[in-house]
């Protein structure tokens, strides 16, 4: 019984092939699983273990270290509010209180309509645009309570709120689990050749013989 859809299984194998050692693909594959299901399930970990020559316990062990991986369902839209120093100085605590009141759930819980989960975040690297929150890792700068309310209205109506977010990032708002909306694709004809470290113990050609 495989967890990945046949399309995603192909993508998974492609990702594994980019690394000299297959275990390196573990985190990218956990992301792929989360993209497919919204969170990390047991069957997902079992198949990732097969693909990366590890055990499902090792997959769990690695996965639980990283806070972006969810081992329980979360809402379609994960709201993260930065409350670290730069944001706190400019009103993040009030914003967090507002978000709690509007969504009417505790941190980590899912709203009744299944749409939202919020978390307090550590620095999200937008400190000069404080206070800041992200939805599925898309930025909303210099946030006010009103901005948050507008974003929620858009998402409930099935519309993308990104036009209200960072001016650089437009388009559709992906569901939780999808980070980059595009994937790197290395054309086979252009690939220099990825080898296991034990198979390439001599210096590369241009070092030995010049270009």
């Amino acid at each position, binding site marked *: 019984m495989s967890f990945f859809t046949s399309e995603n299984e192909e993508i998974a194998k492609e990702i594994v092939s980019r690394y000299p050692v297959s275990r390196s693909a573990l*985190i990218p594959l*956990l992301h792929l699983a989360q993209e497919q299901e919204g969170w990390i399930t047991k069957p997902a970990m079992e198949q990732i273990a097969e693909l990366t020559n590890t055990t499902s316990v090792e997959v769990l062990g690695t996965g639980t270290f990283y806070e972006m991986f969810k081992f329980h369902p979360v809402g379609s839209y994960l709201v993260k509010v930065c409350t670290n120093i730069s944001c706190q100085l400019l009103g993040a605590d009030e914003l967090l209180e507002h978000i709690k009141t509007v969504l009417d759930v505790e941190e980590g819980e899912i709203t009744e309509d299944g749409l939202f989960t919020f978390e307090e975040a550590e620095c999200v*690297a937008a*400190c000069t645009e404080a206070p800041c929150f992200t939805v599925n890792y898309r930025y909303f*700068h210099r946030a006010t309570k009103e901005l948050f309310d507008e974003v929620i209205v858009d998402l409930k109506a099935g519309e993308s709120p990104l036009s209200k977010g960072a001016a650089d990032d437009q388009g559709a708002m992906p569901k939780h689990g999808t980070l*980059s909306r595009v994937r790197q694709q290395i054309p086979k004809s252009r690939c220099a050749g990825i080898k296991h470290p034990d198979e*390439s*113990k001599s210096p590369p050609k241009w070092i030995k013989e010049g270009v």
Partner: protein
Amino acid sequence: MKESSLQDGYIEHAPGFVQNKGPKLVTSRFEHKDSFTLEKYLSTGGYKGLQSSLGRSPSQVHDEVREATLLGRGGAGFPAGIKWGFPPEGVWPRYLVVNGDESEIGTYKDRLLMERDPHQLIEGVLIACYALGLSQAFLYVRGEMALAQERIAIALDEAYKAGYIGKNILGSEFSVDVVMHWGAGAYIVGEETALIESLEGKRGMPRLKPPYFPAAIGLYGKPTIVNNVETLSNLPWILNNGASEYRKFGSEASPGTRMFAISGHVNRPGVYEVEHGVTTFRELFYGDNFCRGIRDDNELKMFIPGGGSAPWFFQEQLDLPLEASDVGAAGSMLGSGAIVVMDETTDAVKACLSVVRFFARESCGKCSPCREGTTWEEKILQRILNGDGRPSDIDLLLDVGDNISPGPYPVAAFSDEGLDAVPFPPRQTTICPLGPSSVAPIVSAIRRFRHEFDSLITKSDPIPLTLSVEEVVT
């Protein structure tokens, strides 16, 4: 944000970045809306540094970088050219890992460089790989930076198709694969050995140095160069213009420019490209070319000069230049180029807790002094703020800190008592500097604003420490 609401200097398509007067070595393309495309990159001199590198021998390229004295921009400030010389002779393959796991409090220059000019970074990666004979490069982007991942993925695809990456680059023997890798939310992975663990598919916990210096025993046990995004983004400029031109900017000890993110209570917060060693903090906070003063004309209370790990600075350090050695001698560091400015309305205890809580949450748990210590620091600070503080808590905080970082802690706060500051960095009982970093805000805040702690504790009504036997049994 609407255009009309933008202050001058800001660019709508690059939120946070402020264009000011001064040399632009790494942010020259930020003004273009499509700066991240291959087309724009090529029309603005892109990939010429790579071409010029391929016309020289790898060791000549290495020499150029060494002569430029390109200092690492990740925090430690170690010269890249020297770091590049560390791999032991005759051991192959060697790898490049690009550290784009930017998560330090207040820091965000790498995110902008990855989002706005991914090709510049890729060209830097290629130059490094050519000079050092590296057979594969991994671009480790912080998990939360979805847009940066998109821009890099597209740029890599474009560069592969155009023949800049992959087999026989630009018709030469130089061949290298560049793979984008991405994390999943862990600050500690910014530490280079933890980054390598994470890239090997493991929990991101730092390795012990020695023996695990990445340049000797790194990824898959092979020599590995770990360079920061901003460091590598400087390479195309250096190879295009030469080391001697590069050294004309900045100071003798730290040539070139640096990106600083100035956040907090200033009138024009933003990410600025600033010449090393020339500008002072005062100019940066109050100058018309930079942040244009503190909000509401308030007094400056304190500022963090180099990320959450850095001891705080105060009014008397305002005239220090942005130069690593001066800042180090004054008892702090420029670190990751993150400056957080706090005005007189700031609650020092609360600010301290905010920074300490970050380290407590991000401790990986490998070393006991950090795992237990940072958590206790957070708990004690929280109870002081909650009005449950005890008179012994200040000493307890310092004692816990002393267990993570023994001996006198280097802080600029000492200088108001006429004591010489102890130069950075501090000592540590841990494998990596995360734990000791949590001590910086505590010692800074207690040394300078002890009265704020005292007044909270005096008003406190703490829960009694002792329980009767009956209470414990039931």
